[in-house]
């Protein structure tokens, strides 16, 4: 198996990883733990404790959690329906679902900005129908909407994939043993789809927590998420040290949430009753 030839095959990937993962990570750690003179400091990291940054971090956590929950609630039933449709029709609907992902992420979010504007398309239609307009642009709601819209496919796909792997006869066996639809869902569908749910949560929660584009475009400049704070330190503030320090904190937060989810996954296994 591990002949010298296969070892050489791994070489490009090792170069890639060193160049684009290890070195940037090392740079962030270096910048995060030093000040402008290059001497060691924890100031950048600890600056997360300033009220402004705490507020941004908690708002980010709240919005990304909310989006993740909404994505999960929308994606699971959809994935169930897709599975029941069978491979043919199911994969076509999945394809339709993924189609918008072929369009640029920025463009799609800009489109929502235009749709949601005070004099935008949606309000135009609503007022034409004599209905009161909606004013969610530049509010946290618009950001949640943008997150859910952009990240929903990342929740649907892993859940759909895991549901497709569940054998029909496993479900039939549960029914055969007397379980009704709700019991079958709670004791069979749900526990068996936990790995898909976990990867879906990861794939939605992490980008939602770190996004700054969605909050920039749909939240106006009034709502600052932690992603915006970091972005501004790098672009406008030109304080790479502070930006890197905050990035490190965010990374720790993500690692902690992943560890929590993984722990829940282990506890959840086998204890379905």
């Amino acid at each position, binding site marked *: 198996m591990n002949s010298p030839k296969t070892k050489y095959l791994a070489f490009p990937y090792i170069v890639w990883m060193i160049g684009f993962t290890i070195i940037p990570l090392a740079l962030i750690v270096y910048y995060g733990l030093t000040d402008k003179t290059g001497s060691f400091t924890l100031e950048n990291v600890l600056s997360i404790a300033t009220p402004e940054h705490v507020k941004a971090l908690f708002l980010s956590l709240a919005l990304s959690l909310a989006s993740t929950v909404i994505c999960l609630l929308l994606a699971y039933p959809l994935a169930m329906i897709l599975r029941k449709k069978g491979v043919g029709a199911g994969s076509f609907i999945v394809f339709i679902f993924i189609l918008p992902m072929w369009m640029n992420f920025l463009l799609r979010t800009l489109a929502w900005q235009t749709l949601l504007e005070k004099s935008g398309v949606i309000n135009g239609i609503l007022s034409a129908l004599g209905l009161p307009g909606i004013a969610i642009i530049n509010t946290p709601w618009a950001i949640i909407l943008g997150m859910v819209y952009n990240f929903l496919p990342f929740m649907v796909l892993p859940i759909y994939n895991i549901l497709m792997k569940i054998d029909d006869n496993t479900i*039939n*066996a549960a029914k055969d*043993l007397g379980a009704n639809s709700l019991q079958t869902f709670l004791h069979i569908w749900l526990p*068996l789809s936990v790995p898909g749910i976990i990867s879906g949560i990861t794939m939605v929660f992490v980008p939602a927590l770190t996004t700054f584009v969605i909050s920039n475009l749909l939240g106006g400049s009034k709502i600052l998420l932690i992603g915006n704070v970091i972005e501004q330190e790098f672009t406008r503030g030109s304080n790479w040290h502070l930006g890197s320090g905050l990035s490190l904190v965010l990374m720790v937060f993500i690692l902690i949430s992943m560890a929590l989810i993984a722990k829940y996954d282990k506890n959840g296994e086998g204890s379905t009753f």
Partner: protein
Amino acid sequence: MNQPLIDLVNISKSFDGDIVLDDLNLSVQENTFVTLLGPSGCGKTTTLRIIGGFERPDKGSVIFSGNDITKLPPNKRQLNTVFQKYALFPHMNIAENIAFGLKIKGKSKSYIQDKIKYALKLVNLDGFENRSIDSLSGGQQQRIAIARAIVNEPKLLLLDEPLGALDLKLRQDMQYELIRLKNELGITFIYVTHDQEEALTMSDTIVVMNQGYIQQMGSPEQIYNEPENAFVADFIGESNIVNGIMVRDELVEIFGAKFPCVDKGFGQNVPVDVVIRPEDIDLLQPGEGSLDGIVTHLIFKGVHYEMEVTTPDGFEWLVHSTDMFPVGQKVSIHVDPFDIQIMNKPESEDEEALGVNE
């Protein structure tokens, strides 16, 4: 006759316009081992799924102990199924798998514990409670699937090719195991298989199916010794099926040679199908039997020799015998009258489809 445990009445079912079952009627008595036997696509699994409640018939009804259960969902039926690939719950250990049905029914903890112990003992897997599914071999998983079904004390156990994935030796062991289980539990088994040997070994009654129709129903001996048509004869065991002419009662002519037989009532000079099992052919010295031929093929099979004897008309007779005749030897075929099975030829093309349609 008692009221049957399960009664299928005029069941029809088609998938996307393909008729899988056509007006099927089947009664199963309590405490019998019934096998649905047939090639793939004959409708045997669909029949089982209709009894289990996983398919709804397009027409007809399913009567269980006198009650119409056609529209009842599977979870409300007093029967359990052992699925083809076991379908154990991978996220539960063995005890949890076995306990599933009982927990759903809200049985007490001590009752469930006792039942798990009892069921594991019954399938010879004592002490396996906390093992995971992955740690079991195929045969063991199959036993757990059976244990999981029988702890619910069903009146009827449906088994969908449960031994299909096991190797030969294990399959034979499990066959005896299943017979023992059935006798110990006293419940009715409906067993689906395409393996004729399995069917002959285990069943009280065999139902031979093809193309959505029941071809013959009877005891293993009846099915083997008196196949009603060429399909059954061909499907169950090996056989020589040849064209013959029923000269008169108790005399049939095959390739110009006269063979005394025991069948009556076919009329005079009527074309018929004749079935002769390979082990029923005796080879004698040339001129001593009814039909002369030459041995053209010889294989040693362990229990017996398998030979092919070609007669002047070109037909190759399959012969099983413990006596060896070398290739090229001239022999004569003799068959005892009661070993010759006469069947009517299918009269119409419809009947042809019903019987032999290869």
